[in-house]
């Protein structure tokens, strides 16, 4: 027997299906909640370790603050650097979030792209471009000497060929990370 399309039947069937679906989703959401936040935390933690080279000699890391700054301390409790999470909405695909490693002297020591929606094969090269050998490399640049800018805009960073917008956004994120770092250590 097929249910008739009477108002009562339609109302009942949709309501019951939606309620059961909502309950099922609530359960699944509850079950996966801790795993999801764990996966996120783990990813951030891994990124922090990745952008801070061992040569900095840090021993302890401060817990991540609201502003996304993780400070690294050596054995004597002096701050030797920080991993700073910053983002910009000006990437070619919009949102671009980067973990930036900065040492106590304001030198860029590493970075890792956390979230990006750049073009595969072009803007996505930012993951390696700015830290591999070559003109595009920004590792070792002193951020306290002034903002990073792509060479097209009169700066010192060689943009990814074909991805000037991504490169500009990258510089913008690094600069804002440095600002956050200054605010945090002040």
């Amino acid at each position, binding site marked *: *027997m*097929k*249910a*008739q*399309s*009477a108002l009562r*039947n*339609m109302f009942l*069937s*949709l309501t019951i*299906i*939606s309620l059961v*679906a909502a309950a*099922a*989703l609530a359960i*699944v*959401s509850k079950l*996966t909640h801790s*795993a*999801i936040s764990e*996966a*996120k935390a783990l*990813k951030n933690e891994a990124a922090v370790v990745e952008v801070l080279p061992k040569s900095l000699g840090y021993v302890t890391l401060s817990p991540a603050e609201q502003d996304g700054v993780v400070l690294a301390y050596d054995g004597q409790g002096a701050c030797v650097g920080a991993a700073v999470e910053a983002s910009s909405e000006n990437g070619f695909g919009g949102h671009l979030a980067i973990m930036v490693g900065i040492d106590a002297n304001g030198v860029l020591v590493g970075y890792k792209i956390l*979230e990006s*929606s750049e*073009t*595969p*094969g*072009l803007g996505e090269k930012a993951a390696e471009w700015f830290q591999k050998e070559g003109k595009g490399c920004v590792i070792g640049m002193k951020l306290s000497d002034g903002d990073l800018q792509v060479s097209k805009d009169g700066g010192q960073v060689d943009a990814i060929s074909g991805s000037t917008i991504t490169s500009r956004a990258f510089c913008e994120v690094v600069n804002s990370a440095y600002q956050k770092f200054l605010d945090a250590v002040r």
Partner: protein
Amino acid sequence: MKSIEIIKNGLFSQNPTWVLVLGTCPTLATTTSAVNGLSMGLATTFVLMMSNIFISLLKSLIPDKVRIPAYIVIIATFVTVVQLIMQAYLPDLYETLGLFIPLIVVNCIVLGRAESFASKNNVWHSWLDGLFTGLGFAWALTLIGFVRELLGAGTIFGHSIIGGADGMLLFILPPGGFICFGFLMALVRKAIR
């Protein structure tokens, strides 16, 4: 007898990608590598399987006039389940596929199978149809991803085979997706026939 026909239909003669040409948007967008294509295909397979089972079970309880919203609620539920599980246990993959996971809800293959198959057949056949239509979609996506990855990045399932070379970028970008899709469709249809 019918079961064998369902399997053959899903994988070959009624293949959603090569023959019915449904769901081309996620097909082109997620096949930048073989792994991405395969994962998208398997995620869709799971949704197809589960939604077909439930729609077939509930078909006599759902009045005709509200069947589409009812189906969509069921499909969206399973898509959200996939999304949450992926986010929890496969975060890297979730990031690559990103937006296209929630968009499985509106993948016309899923609603198409619900409407044209699960709402008219028993649970066993619907389950089989969901599974093999999904696998048909999955192998098509994997093949397209494999070719695009090989030509565009010079890698096979992420392993580099031509050291140092960058590959032809075109094939990773949308135009190359269309070109691959077209040529592969011609070849596969010739082979299936």
